[in-house]
């Protein structure tokens, strides 16, 4: 068999590619070899929630720098390995398996969406790794995946019980119309399961209860839905959507002259939504927002915001989101667990160390979060303070304070 120059160059190219691949993906050294405390994170740095994922990444990088500059954790360096799930459930589950198996992390922060959590949380139980979502708020997602699944968030059903009475009283709402993003799990839960019931409890009629209006993630044209909404003549509108989709609905409402107050869930909270239709009041619950008064929240915003604004691919006016605060708090809780349990990261102790982190989270009481103390309930959801905020004329302002735990926060 003879080789032509072309075949030789191809062989050389294949060898070069193989060498590059090996160099790019070296075997993962154990934590003890590198003296590292390893934490994993799953965020959507691409896809429809890329903004949240990218700010989460910068938040975690900042935390990693802060901790290591202060001497690390128990003398070991903190290493946060971050994977992008693009808000895709299967990708989130695969990332969790990789973090648990290949990267041998102690615990994981993420995934962000409820859709991803519903698929990734069972993997947390299989692999025995504490996994805490920074954003999922669809009812029951952590409760269905005990004991390793947690959410540093408040269930939307709990939030609606405070936000709806405020909405109803403030604007004298007697009737509402509902529109929602049918492709998003938490948006669908808010619009189809939570809000109709809570509105009824508060004496508000849902005018299209038998024919809820929906659209799909990514659709720009919601003119037909808004025309139908307008024909119902509602006093208020419920938007079940994340802020990027809600912008489309608000703009269409403004175009068609439907300028009634709007209410939704936590996914509405963002600075972008404030410029969509500034004259339309938007009511939503939040556990954190960038302009809140608490000193710890202000300090967090002061150090993170310049980093976010200096990052390419993020809007120049971006502010830290509730989910940045939640993921920052989550990793701080893990660090506290490592410190209090005296975890060293030695080989052979990983399984025991993971159990210690889980037990620490399960029994956590009054952890000092950015907006107040945080504990975890038996459901795996956080017991923390939340705020009903109203966005209008370009700014959010706090209107009510609530607590997700029966005994108060």
């Amino acid at each position, binding site marked *: 068999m003879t080789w032509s120059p072309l075949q030789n160059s191809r062989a050389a190219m294949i060898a070069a590619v193989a060498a590059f691949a090996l160099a790019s993906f070296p075997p993962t050294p154990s934590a003890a070899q590198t003296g590292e405390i390893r934490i994993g994170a799953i965020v959507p740095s691409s*896809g429809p929630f*890329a903004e949240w994922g990218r700010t989460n990444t910068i938040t975690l990088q900042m935390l990693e720098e802060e901790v290591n500059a202060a001497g690390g954790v128990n003398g070991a360096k903190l290493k946060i390995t971050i994977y992008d799930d693009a808000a895709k459930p299967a990708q989130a589950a695969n990332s969790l398996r990789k973090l648990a198996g290949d990267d041998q992390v102690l615990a994981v922060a993420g995934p962000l969406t409820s859709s991803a959590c519903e698929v990734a949380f069972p993997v947390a139980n299989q692999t025995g790794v504490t996994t805490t979502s920074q954003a999922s708020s669809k009812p029951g997602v952590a409760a269905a995946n005990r004991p390793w699944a947690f959410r540093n968030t408040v269930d939307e059903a709990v939030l609606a019980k405070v936000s709806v009475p405020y909405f109803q009283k403030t604007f004298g709402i007697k009737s509402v119309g509902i529109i929602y993003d049918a492709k998003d799990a938490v948006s669908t839960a808010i619009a189809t399961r939570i809000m109709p019931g809570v509105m009824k409890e508060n004496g508000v009629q849902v005018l299209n209860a038998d024919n809820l209006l929906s659209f799909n993630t*990514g659709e*720009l044209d919601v*003119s*037909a839905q808004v025309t139908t909404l307008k*024909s119902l003549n509602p006093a208020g509108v419920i938007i079940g959507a994340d802020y990027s989709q809600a912008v489309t609905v608000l*703009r269409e409402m403004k175009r*068609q002259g439907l300028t009634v107050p709007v209410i939704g869930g936590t996914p509405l909270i963002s600075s972008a939504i404030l410029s969509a239709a500034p004259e339309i009041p938007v009511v939503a619950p939040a556990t954190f927002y960038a302009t809140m008064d608490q000193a710890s929240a202000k300090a967090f915003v002061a150090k993170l915001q310049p980093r976010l604004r200096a990052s390419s*691919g993020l809007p120049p006016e971006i502010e830290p989101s509730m989910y940045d605060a939640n993921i920052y708090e989550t990793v701080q809780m893990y660090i506290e667990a490592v410190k209090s349990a005296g975890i060293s990261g030695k080989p052979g102790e990983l399984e025991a160390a993971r159990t210690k982190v889980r037990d620490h989270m399960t029994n956590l009481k009054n952890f000092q979060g950015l907006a107040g103390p945080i504990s975890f309930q038996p459901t795996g959801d956080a017991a923390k303070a939340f705020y009903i905020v109203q966005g209008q004329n370009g700014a959010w302002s706090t209107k009510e304070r609530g607590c997700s735990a029966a005994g108060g926060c």
Partner: protein
Amino acid sequence: MFLQQLVNGLTLGAVYTLVALSFSLVMGILGILNLAIAELFMIGGFVGFSLLVSGYPIPVALGAGMLAAGLFAIVIERVAYRPLRDAPLVTPMLSTLGFSIILQNIATNYWGSDPLQLPGYFLATRFEAGGVQIGAMQLVVLAATIILVGLLALLVRRTKIGRALRAIAENRDVARSLGVSANQLTMVAFLLSGLLAGAAGVLVGMHYTAITPYVGVDTGLKAIAVMVVGGVTNIWGALLAGPIIGIAEVMTVAYGGSQLRDFIVYGIMILILLIRPQGLLGEARAEWSQRV
């Protein structure tokens, strides 16, 4: 409400028509489905949008959006189509699909995933008659659609390039023997489709006053349905099918339930494929796999 929904349906149909024209230009001439067109539409929209937000006038934004999409279309032709034109039919289609994902990633990395919004005054000008409202930008989209379809029809029917494109579509071997340059004409077809997609992106962005990197997928799929319903070989087919699909979608939302709209839109497409595969205005063609 019916008349208002009719206006909504016509505007939505105009949007689909503009994108469908881009698809049918390449499909009609080359017999391949360039799946990256949906993202050229998005890229054109973002470029135009960025300029509008920076204060440039509409004609500059429109021209820049068209130019950007046209340039990307040429890159797609050279990188994703030309090297693969002798491969099985599905191969260039898959490579354009790959390119569409790359373009979406470029947009997400450069502009971010947050919706880019135009100032409120783009929404301000509205006309009302008999309880029916129509925005100034809706009228612009409707007028631009009719003008662009007319110009494209003129180009294909009356110009030297158009005749060459039709010759290639009819019989590439005979066209080549008569001196028509297949490579050059393929590039022209891609360029024209890119320019159209870019124009559609800017116009649609101005109409909705918001744009995201994910706008191409849904609009692109509906535009393919419009192309199939109208007939791939007839440019006027898209002008007929766009409003049919747009109005069907809007009326389903208004009177049938919004969850049914995709069922109706793609149901119409499948029905047409079953009973009149060449589309409403298309001509039956024996050899669909013909490519340059």
